C-alpha cells in the first residue's frame, strides 16, 4: 500500500514509517497540516495516518477539507489525549478509524490493513466465506463444510468481523470496538472467552482450526483453507 503519514513529532513519524516500510509499504511523511493536505490531494494513497494536533492545519480540519474535496482516502487518526470527545469529533469529521497514543505498532498496522481494503457498506456481499466456512449476514446463519453451526449473537458478530478481514490480524481492541462497541479495554478476558466458545463450536467434529491466534497481536481467520 502507499501510505501517507502526517505527523509533526519526528520520532513518532519515523517509528511508524520504519515499521510500515518493513511490512513492505511505500511511505510518504509530512510534518505539517498544510503540506499534508497538499500531498493527500495530490492523490494516489491507499491510506493515511493523520495526527490530530498538527502545525499549520490541525488533523481534523485536514480530514474535513479532504472530504469536502471529494477525496475518500481512508484516514486513521492519531491523538495524544484520552479522547472521549476527540474520538466522536474525529469520526464525525470524516476519519475512518481512531487510535489513541501511545499505541503498539501492531495495533496501528492491523488497523491500517483493515482500512486499506474496507469495502463500503453498500458494496458488502450478503455472504462471507473463509475456507469451508460460509456466513450469511442476512439470514444470520453459519455453515462449515455444509454443516449448520448455531452461534450466540455476539459469537456471530465476532465471526463476521473476522471474516470481513480474512487473512488480516484483528487486534483485541479492534474486536472490542467493533463487536461490543467498547472504546476501552476491560481487565476481564471477554474477547478470549468468546473466541474460545466460538472456536469450540466451529471446530466440533473438525480437525483444523480456521482461527489463528497471533501472539501479542490478535486473531485472524485463515483465508482460503
Amino acid at each position, binding site marked *: 500500500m502507499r501510505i501517507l503519514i502526517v505527523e509533526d513529532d519526528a520520532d513518532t513519524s519515523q517509528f511508524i514509517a520504519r515499521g510500515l516500510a518493513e511490512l513492505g509499504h511505500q511511505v510518504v511523511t509530512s510534518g505539517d497540516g498544510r503540506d499534508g493536505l497538499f500531498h493527500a490531494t495530490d492523490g494516489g494513497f491507499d491510506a493515511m495516518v493523520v495526527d490530530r494536533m498538527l502545525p499549520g492545519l490541525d488533523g481534523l480540519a485536514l480530514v474535513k477539507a479532504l472530504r469536502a474535496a471529494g477525496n475518500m482516502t481512508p484516514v486513521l487518526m492519531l491523538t495524544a*489525549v*484520552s*479522547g*472521549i*470527545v476527540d474520538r*466522536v469529533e474525529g469520526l464525525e469529521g470524516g476519519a475512518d478509524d481512531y487510535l*489513541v497514543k*501511545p499505541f*503498539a505498532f501492531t495495533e496501528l498496522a492491523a488497523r491500517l490493513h483493515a482500512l486499506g481494503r474496507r469495502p463500503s457498506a453498500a458494496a458488502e456481499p450478503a455472504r462471507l466465506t473463509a475456507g469451508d466456512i460460509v456466513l450469511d449476514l442476512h439470514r444470520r446463519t453459519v455453515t462449515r463444510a455444509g454443516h449448520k453451526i448455531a452461534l450466540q449473537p*455476539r459469537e456471530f458478530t465476532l465471526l463476521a468481523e473476522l471474516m470481513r478481514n480474512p487473512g488480516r490480524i484483528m487486534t483485541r481492541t479492534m474486536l472490542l470496538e467493533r463487536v*461490543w*462497541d*467498547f*472504546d*476501552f479495554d*476491560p*481487565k*476481564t*478476558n*471477554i474477547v*478470549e*472467552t*468468546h473466541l474460545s*466458545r466460538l472456536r469450540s463450536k466451529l471446530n466440533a467434529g473438525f480437525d483444523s482450526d480456521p482461527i489463528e491466534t497471533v501472539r501479542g497481536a490478535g486473531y485472524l481467520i485463515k483465508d482460503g483453507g
Partner: protein
Amino acid sequence: MKRWWRGTFGLVAAVAVGFALATLVIGAVAFETTHEALELQLDHRIAIETQALIDEGQDGHEGVAAAIRRREAASSTASLGYRLVDAQNRPVAGSLDATVPSKPGYVELLPYKANGEERIAQSLTTALPGGYRLLVGADRAAIDEMDNRFILLFLGAFGAMLLLGIGAAWLVGIVTRRRLARIDHTAAAIIAGDLSRRVPLTGSGDEFDGVATTLNRMLDRIAGLMENLRQVSSDVAHDLRTPLTRLQNCLDEALRERNPELQREAIEAAASEAGELLEVFSALLRIAEVEGLAARAHFQTVDLSAVVADVAEAFRPSMESSGHQLVTSIAPGLTMPGDRRLLQQMLTNLLDNAAQHTPQGTTVSIALESTRNGIRLAVSDNGPGVGEMEAPELFKRFARADRSRSTPGHGLGLAMVAAIVAAHSGRATIDSRPGFGVHAEF
C-alpha cells in the same frame, strides 16, 4: 480617584444634597402658597370693611366720613386704617397717613406713616360719588413676619439636611471602607501566599458578613480542590514509582545479561512494564477528562437497560468460566441522557472488580430498576467484601482495599466509576455489608 462620586462617600453625599434640594423646593412651594393665602385673606377683610363703610354711609360721603370717625373713636380697628379724600385730594376723614392713589383698586404695597414710622400697607381705593375716594388699608407687618419666619425655618431645615447628609456620607464612607479593607487585607494575604487566611466576620449577620461568608466558603472550596490536586499528584508520583523502578530493574538486567535469549526476555518484561505505566496514565487522563465534564456536550438519550444487558452478556462467558455466577434483574426500557460508552465502561469496571476480587463460587448480581427519583443501578456480590472504614475511600484514585493489594490493578477503576456517575449527575455509594456492592442513582 478620578470618579470620586462613584465611591460610597460620593453616593451618600449626592443623595443628601438631593434631599436638601428637595426640601428647598418643597419650602418654596409651601412659602408661596401660604403667602398667597394670607394676602387673599387680607384683601378679603379690606373689601368687607370698605363695603361695610359704604353701606353705613347710605347718603354719600358724609355718611361714610361719619362711619370712619365712629370706628376710629371706638379704636376697635387697630389693624385697619381709613382715609377719605375729596376730588382735590383734601382729607375729609380718617387718620391713615398715606397718599390716596388716584385710581380705584388694590395697591399691595402702599407706604404710610404711623407714629413717625414708615410702614407698608395693603390697600383698596374705592371711588365714591362726587369725586370722593375712600382708602381702606391694613398693615402688612403680620404677613411679612410670617414670611420671614417661614424662610428662616426652611433655610434652617435645608442647612440641617445638608449637614446631616454630609455627616452620614462621611460616616458610611468610613464604615464601608473599613469593612471592605478587611476583605482586601485577606485577599492581599492570600495573594502573598497565606492560603489559610479567611475574611473575619463581625457576627452581626449584615450584608458584609454575608459577602464574607460566601467568600470564605469559596476559599474553602478552592482550598479543598487544591488539597485534592496536591493529594492526587503526590499519589500519582508515589504510585508510579514502583512500576518505574521495576522498569529500570528490567532494563538494568537486560544491559547486564549476556545470554541473548534471557536478554530478550528482560526487554520484553521492560516493555510490558512501560505498557502498564502508559495504561495508568491514560486511565488517569480519562478520569480527568470525564471529571472535566466535556463529554456532557455529546450526551444523547441512552437506553440504559440495553447497555446494562449488553455488558452483562459480554461478561457472562468469562464470569462463568472463572467460576462466578452472574444474576441480572434489568427493568426494560429505562433511558437517560448520557454517553453510552462511558456508561458501558462504568459497568465494565464494576464487573471487572467483581470478577477479580471475589473467589470462585461468588454470585454477582446486577439490578437496574426505576425508582421514584430516577434510575437505580446496583452491582453487588456476596463475596468477602471490604472493611467498613475502607469503603468510602475506594472512590479515590489509587485507593485499594487491603484485601486486593495482591491482585493486579491500580485502584483507578472505582475512581472512574465515580467520575462517570458524577458526570451523569448521579450519586454513587458503596454498600460493603454483606459482600461488596456499588449503587448508582441517576
